[in-house]
């Protein structure tokens, strides 16, 4: 019991590290998802761009929403935002802090997906091979316009009979992959610089307000947890009392209807107490039927 309580207390005091853990797991899951995805470009002029850009942008949206769903703090923040002020004022700085911390954590997995996609290159090759300028590549320069579109659209498919072993196909593929990787590394560089500046410069602006916002957002989280615990405790006791009352009332009813004399005997008192006066099959059946058809009222006063 002590062990559970200590682990529970550790997580309670350190909900940020739990959130960081979930965020890291989602990022790893997104890499794993990408590597197990069987990317298969349609190699048709009208469908390539939709497929390529779809694979690049739709899973990040899904991952972002998953990040919000799995984050307990998102619900806490929404509740704090929508509650009526009542006796307790609302502090917009706290809500802003919670919102920004939730968004930052939810953005990690989508960004990882987009960067991995760009560094791999398949999506961009699929999406933009049909938009290349055929004059730049030797094999496509002297082909009619409709055919060149078809050929360019087939560039992502290595096994197609028209483009297998074609040097121009490899040139286009290489060119696009090079741009895709450059874009991927640039995005990663920009984001890391932004993260570094944010961490470095944050204490320069309003550090005291930040400490307060962080403390009270942690407090709101803890308070919600303790309130739920208290309600659970309370409902357990409530249920216990309610059921005891039910058994007592059943016992009285059975005594009234069956005129059974209380049995005398030394150990009988103890046994009677445990059995709540219900000592044969018919009485148990009546009790169970009443429990189903006529549940007692929610009132133990």
């Amino acid at each position, binding site marked *: 019991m002590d062990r559970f309580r200590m682990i529970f207390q550790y997580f309670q005091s*350190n909900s940020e590290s739990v959130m960081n853990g979930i965020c890291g797991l989602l990022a790893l899951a997104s890499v794993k998802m990408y590597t197990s995805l069987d990317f298969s470009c349609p190699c048709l002029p009208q469908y390539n761009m939709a497929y390529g850009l779809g694979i690049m942008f739709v899973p990040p949206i899904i991952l972002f929403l998953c990040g919000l769903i799995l984050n307990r703090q998102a619900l806490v923040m929404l509740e704090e935002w929508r509650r009526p002020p009542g006796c307790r004022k609302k502090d917009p700085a706290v809500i802003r802090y919670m919102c920004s911390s939730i968004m930052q954590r939810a953005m990690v997995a989508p960004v990882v997906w987009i960067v991995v996609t760009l560094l791999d290159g398949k999506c961009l090759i699929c999406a933009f091979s049909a938009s290349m300028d055929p004059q730049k590549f030797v094999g496509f320069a002297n082909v009619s316009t409709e055919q060149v579109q078809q050929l360019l659209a087939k560039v992502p498919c290595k096994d197609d009979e028209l483009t297998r072993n074609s*040097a121009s196909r490899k040139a286009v593929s290489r060119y696009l992959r090079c741009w895709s990787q450059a874009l991927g*590394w640039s995005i990663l560089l920009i984001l*890391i610089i932004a993260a570094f500046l944010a961490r470095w410069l944050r*204490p320069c602006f309003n550090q005291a307000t930040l400490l307060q916002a962080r403390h009270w957002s942690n407090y709101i989280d803890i308070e919600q947890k303790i309130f739920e615990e*208290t309600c659970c405790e309370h409902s357990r006791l*409530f249920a216990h009392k309610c059921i005891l009352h039910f058994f007592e009332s059943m016992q009285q009813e059975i005594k009234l209807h069956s005129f059974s004399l209380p049995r005398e005997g030394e150990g009988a008192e103890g046994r009677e107490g445990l059995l709540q006066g219900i000592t044969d099959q018919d009485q148990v059946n009546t009790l169970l039927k009443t429990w189903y058809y006529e549940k007692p009222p929610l009132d133990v006063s």
Partner: protein
Amino acid sequence: MDKFRMIFQFFQSNQESFMNGICGIMALASTQMYSAFDFNCPCLPQYNLAYGLGILLVPPFILFLLGFVLNNNISMLAEEWRRPRGRRGKDAAVLRYMCCSMAQRAMIAPVVWLSVTLLDGKCITCAFCTSVPLESLGNASHPHLPQGEVQRVLARIPCKEIYNGQQLIANEVAVRYLRCISQALGWCFVLLMTTLAFLVRSLRPCFSQAAFLKSRYWSHYIDIERKLFDETCAEHARSFAKVCIQQFFEGMSTDLAAARCHLPRKAPADAGEAAEKLLGITDQGTMNMALKSWHRCKPPLHLHPPAPPTGNGWAGEGQPLTHPSAPRKETAAYYSLV
């Protein structure tokens, strides 16, 4: 449980060893990243140099900054640097120590990437294939091609399947040459870094060791102090929340009792504890009202001192205050000034 506590305490007391761990993981991650990355030289004259040097230099920069971002001490350093002086002086030596120690750890992953890249050779081959010395390695007596064409042919050296300049210079010769230079550079780089690290470690005790010990101690202290403060605030928030919720439920049951003009029923002695735990809420309507009130009208963040026991006009002696920052404290301060 003791095991968890011990591990936790070990990490807590030894932020440096925790950071060493992260640093090692990042170095491994950088080799993994390099082997997973699909190096794809564009084989075009204008793009080769940019691509090759880009892959050589941009990821180390990213890894360096990442080393700072992942290090919790960075915000501690910035905080310590920007805080108002207050009643505690600032020691520039401590800040310098923290900065140096963070920078040293952040350098490891980039150095690993650079070494692995140079030793592998693909980047240098891609970046400098157009600068291969044709006179010494190639066929200088080959019919003279225009310079642009020569550059285009040489640019295809890394892409074996499309290389068409076998008469100008053999592909294997050029690749071997470039890879040899790359590996020489790689080993020299590793040797230089290791020598630097060795010198820094062995010569440091010769220069102001006492000052170094002081800076290290106080930087650990600042780290531990910040962690303990966070823990204390979390403990305090927990206690605050417990008392706040308890007072909320008490307030609710008092309100209800006043509204319904119930005579307090004498609970039998043995059910006293259970009745107390029920917090005075004993039916569905009351519970619903409590939950609605919790949402609509959260209690203020202001704990009042515990009420005197019912039936007695006098407060018991030695009643502990639930919250030291209740207004009573201000009154005491006034008295002490008098």
